[in-house]
């Protein structure tokens, strides 16, 4: 425990890592920073499992016949890949790790509003993950991550119930985290931190939480209905009893389309922080960025039907969903253009996290544009459920989101561990990831246009060439993903001390020690200036060295 003296300064406090070394001190912690680390460990574990499944999938598809694994095994592999990656990696990736660690720091708070709930949500996530893993160890699930009825409810002989329960439970973990974030942002902002002074990372987490809280229950109820159909033989979607499998798709996508924004919105926030810091520039069009984030979060709820253009949904409904899907391109485009414009007139340096962020913009642009193809009804009719769709959402989820995750991880690594990693290796990994990613997934656009359906264990010979390329790219990508594990891992033991603010960034989280003390701040900061004040509004942006005499964003009066 820390002791606070009369002036509010915390005397000689160990940082949060040194606040206790027992396993118990970690497993029963209510410190948001430690919970962030707990999440990081579990998420990386799931990322490795999901990645291993992806490797097997690409190996199998390197040749046209199904020769490496059986069809049943293949179906279980891609389901495993989807379920683990979506619900146990992508959805919680940035919010639960970086968000948990940084949100209170970025708003000048001592902790989340509900620290115990925060810890509880990690345990709930763990229980959900273990159930899903149990389903995998017992023999796997073969429904695909979408759990479409009636296959999942009446025909599949795999462990659907267990896996669905795992996802159901993990859903409550994300709801708890989202709820915690919202209340924290509302009640814990430090003095002077008005809404329009919030960093965009915080805005992004706030919007994400909103989507999490209001969309996840739809998934919960859809899965609960599938489980009830399987276990109690209630024919909720059973055509023999008059049930409609398309209704399941409506409820499922009411969650799962907003879920795409749950995954990508935090990435937007991370990239904004990184871009402004390394271009030493105020973010271009702060208000527009805020409204774009909120607009995407809101509109994300109105477009789910574009997943159902060929399902037998009515043509009128399809047109409405198509229009709404085209409209959501507007806020997304605003973000891309504003990021590009942020570079204008800056003092740009190319640290590893900046490379990841720039890569993110490129890949997200491509992913977003191909989204327009799928928003259009006649084009989607040909592209639906082909590799075009696979490529499209991997550009958003992997090219976009995972790049952003790595950008954030590298950006805040010195803050989290207090150590610097090898910049050279990090830049190399960033470049390799960008190349490997495009190598893997660009050929899949072509495969999709040629008509190769997804979830195929074997395929006709005419698709061979592009599949071979894609599999070759996957090898590069796998190496690129493993590299950070090595150099980041080594940095914890060997890295040089980072100092409080190695990037001379302006966020509040950089105004405390690295790693931060248990209480985050000595006296709580008081914000007197706009966010991203890398230069005064009437001043030219200045290079990094010149920043040092720049007045601090907050003064250090005692509250």
């Amino acid at each position, binding site marked *: 425990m820390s002791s606070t003296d009369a002036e509010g300064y915390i005397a000689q406090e160990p940082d949060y890592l040194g606040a206790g070394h027992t396993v118990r001190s970690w497993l029963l912690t*209510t410190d948001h920073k430690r919970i962030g680390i707990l999440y990081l460990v579990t998420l990386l574990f799931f990322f490795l499992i999901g990645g291993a499944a992806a490797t097997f999938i690409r190996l199998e598809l390197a040749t046209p016949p199904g020769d490496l694994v059986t069809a049943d095994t293949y179906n279980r592999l891609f389901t495993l890949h989807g379920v683990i990656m979506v619900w146990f990696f992508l959805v919680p990736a940035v919010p639960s790790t970086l968000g948990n660690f940084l949100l*209170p720091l970025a708003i000048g*708070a*001592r*902790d*989340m*509003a*509900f*620290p115990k*709930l925060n810890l509880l949500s990690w345990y709930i996530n763990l229980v959900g993950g273990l159930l899903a893993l149990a389903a995998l160890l017992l023999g796997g699930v073969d429904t695909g991550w979408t759990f479409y009825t009636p296959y999942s409810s009446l025909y599949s002989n795999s462990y659907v119930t267990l896996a669905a329960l795992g996802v159901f439970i993990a859903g409550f973990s994300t*709801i708890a985290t*989202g*709820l*915690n974030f*919202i*209340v924290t942002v*509302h*009640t*814990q902002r430090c003095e002077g931190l008005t809404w329009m002074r919030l960093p965009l990372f915080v805005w992004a987490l706030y919007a994400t939480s909103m989507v999490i*809280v*209001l*969309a*996840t*229950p*739809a998934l*919960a*109820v*859809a899965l*609960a*209905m599938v489980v*009830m159909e399987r276990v*109690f*033989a*209630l*024919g*909720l979607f059973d055509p023999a*009893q*008059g*049930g*409609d499998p398309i*209704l399941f798709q*409506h*409820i499922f996508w*009411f969650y799962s389309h907003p879920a795409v924004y749950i995954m990508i919105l935090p990435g937007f926030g991370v990239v904004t922080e990184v871009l402004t810091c390394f271009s030493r520039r105020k973010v271009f069009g702060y208000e527009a960025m805020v409204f774009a984030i909120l607009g995407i979060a809101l509109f994300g709820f109105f477009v789910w039907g574009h997943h159902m253009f060929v399902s037998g949904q009515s043509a009128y409904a399809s047109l409405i969903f198509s229009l709404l899907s085209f409209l959501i391109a507007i806020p997304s485009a605003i973000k891309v253009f504003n990021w590009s414009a942020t570079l204008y007139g800056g003092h740009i340096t190319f640290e590893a996290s900046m490379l990841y962020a720039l890569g993110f913009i490129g890949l997200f642009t491509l992913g977003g544009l191909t989204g327009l193809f799928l928003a259009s009804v006649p084009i989607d009719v040909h592209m639906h459920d082909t590799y075009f769709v696979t490529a499209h959402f991997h550009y958003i989820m992997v090219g976009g989101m995972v790049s952003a995750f790595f950008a954030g991880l590298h950006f805040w690594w010195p803050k989290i561990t207090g150590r610097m990693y090898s910049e050279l290796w990090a830049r190399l990994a960033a470049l390799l990831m960008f190349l490997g990613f495009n190598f893997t997934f660009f050929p899949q656009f072509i495969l999709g246009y040629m008509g190769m359906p997804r979830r195929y264990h074997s395929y006709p010979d005419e698709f061979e060439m592009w599949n071979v390329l894609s599999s070759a790219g996957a090898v590069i990508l796998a190496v690129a993903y493993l590299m950070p594990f090595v150099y980041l891992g080594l940095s914890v033991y060997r890295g040089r001390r980072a100092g409080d603010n190695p990037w001379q960034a302006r966020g509040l989280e950089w105004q405390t020690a690295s790693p931060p003390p248990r209480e985050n701040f000595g006296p709580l900061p008081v914000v007197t200036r706009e966010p991203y004040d890398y230069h005064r509004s009437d001043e030219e942006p200045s290079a990094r060295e010149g920043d040092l005499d720049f007045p601090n964003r907050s003064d250090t009066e005692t509250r």
Partner: protein
Amino acid sequence: MPEALHEPFHDIGKQRSAEEAGIWIFLASEVIFFGGLFLGYAVYRLRLPEGYGAAMAETNLTLGIVNTALLLASSATMAFTVWVGREGLQRATVTGLIATLALGTAFLAVKGVEYYEDIRHHLIPGHPDFPVDVPGAEMFFSFYWAMTGLHGLHMAIGLGIIAWTVHAVRSDRIAWRETAHLHVVGLYWNLVDVVWIFLFPLLYLVGR
């Protein structure tokens, strides 16, 4: 007495409103959760009106009315608990909680009796002796079981929390006077009640 103020708050009023905001956000997500079930019910009702009507005749209206009365009463006792809790009246609070607990348990007991009768009448979708031979009747009962089942699950969770709260208030294990604990439990319980207020006409009345 336990400490009312928890990290990271410095102000009990702010902490209380944070707790209330938290439960309201959770209730908002519950609205969407039950909304999915209501959507399914509505879509099929529109498609299979005869089946729904014929099947509804098989539900036990008397027990439905009894349960509605029980749950409305429990909602009132819960609200009473919150009010007296705010005044700091320990005995009245415990009494209110126990009354809510008793009424809620009675609801589940009546529901159990109703389930027993339903099963005896083979009102189970897909059962070979399902008594109503109109398309859609089984779908109605699928939703009957799913909706009352999930509602019952929410009740059971609520009763568990209330039972713990009785103990905690009586032994002063929590700072129930200062924190929003009772209000939070009350809001959850009232939402469960609101869900039933819609379930009752949909499962027992409309189109009977």
